[in-house]
């Protein structure tokens, strides 16, 4: 087989695979819809405000509720001593417009 045919074939394969994954994405998106709706319902019932992503310290748990009694985070741009600080910041935009 010619190299160019192989090239286009492999390109098509990769694009096809990607398309397959994107289909998977949109498929699981609709599949997850009820699941998401139920999670949202739980959030609504329990009046939750935040994701349970960062549980290492108290003040990282409910980011939007900013528990201010904690060191190292009074300034919104202060460096975090907790590793999750590299992923989130103490909340910035919580003040009314």
């Amino acid at each position, binding site marked *: 087989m*010619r*190299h*160019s045919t*192989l*090239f286009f074939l*492999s*390109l098509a394969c*990769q*694009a096809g*695979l*990607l398309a397959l*994954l*994107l289909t*998977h*994405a949109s498929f*699981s*998106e609709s599949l*997850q819809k009820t*699941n*998401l709706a*139920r*999670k*949202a*319902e*739980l*959030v609504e*019932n*329990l*009046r*939750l*405000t*935040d*994701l*349970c*992503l*960062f*549980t*290492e*310290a*108290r003040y990282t*748990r*409910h*980011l*939007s*509720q900013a*528990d*201010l*009694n904690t060191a190292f985070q009074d300034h919104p741009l202060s460096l975090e001593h*907790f*590793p*999750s600080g*590299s*992923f989130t*910041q103490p*909340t*910035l*935009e*919580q003040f*009314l*417009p």
Partner: protein
Amino acid sequence: MTPWIEKQRYIIDFTISSLLRRKVKNIGLLALYTLIVFILASTMFFTYSIKKEAKLILQGSPEIVVQKIVAGRHDLFPVDYIEPIKAIRGVADVESRLWGYYYDSLVQANYTVLVPSRPVDKSQSNARTTVVVDPNDPHAADVDKPLYDYDGAAPEAGTIVIGNGVARMREIGVGDFMPFMAFDGQIMNLKVIGTLSAESELVSSDLILVNGADFRKLFGIAEQFVTDVIVTVKNPSEVGMVAGKIKKKLQSARPIIREEILRTYDSIFNWRGGMMIVVFSAAVLAFVIFAWDKASGLSAGERREIGILKAVGWETGDVIQMKFWEGAMVSLSAYFSGVILAYIHVFFTGSAVFEPALKGWSALYPHFSLTPYVNAEQLTTLFFLTVVPYTVATIVPTWRAATIDPDTAMRHTGE
């Protein structure tokens, strides 16, 4: 048109065989390139999905949360404040919330202890599943496992409902007792009467739902205080205005609007995604320099090859096309494989590479699988961040290579 296509195919044929002749070098480049795309794509997929997930899930969170601030610090909210807020026009309802954190020294984890308010009444959907769990039969609930074995009602005194993460960490389940140390040193043994489902871990992993009286006993909070209050507004478009009125009326109050929370999460993950990319841009830059170097530092063999091509009748434009295809092959393959691998990494293996960073020092980390949200915007952004710099870095070296004099082939005497 056909000669043009045929010509491109010839050029591609030749380009591939010339790439294959320098296998090690080119596979190294391809692997490095794929790695760069993979890291950037994983970051983008992860942050984007979590952003979207947060946006969808937190759609149900309270419209306005009002806290009390004393000296710039979060303080308990006096029940007396509730009536003045209720009196504000446009306010539909004000509910108090009782919640806090509890540090478990046994497993060194922080739990969120929460007193559930009454469930939101949705007359149109009363179909919420309530499963009474028989403590003697641990598999009773598996028959038709609902997402939540919990109907939203506050647990009775002496009982708790725990999040799945707590259950996992403490290795306890329904029917077990969990000891808590109250503020005054008293030990309270609370009975677990239910767990929140594993699927909801992203929001509920560390929750412990308790009865209001137990909560006050545990933390020593007097009856005239609550943690904060939730305000519901009659007309959703007036949320901002109502929040402003609350702030005006109660100077020490700090209203937090749902939209702000959502926007903030959006910003956080945007910022973090951007941060990651800025950090990785050093890697991208290093790669671009590497690509530049590889493209401009033609070996004697490569120069000779191009000289021969030009001597036998290839034009500068043809050589540029050849180099274009070379770049296109490398970058398209790297782009596609990087994106595909990143997708698998983030959505099938649960971001195994990122987990340590995300987890940080958390003792209690939720198990969750992200719902994939991938759109054209992310893919185009990735393309711009990876393929474009690579391509640009190779233009000038390409042109240099393509303008090698054809008579170098003639002047070449020794082998």
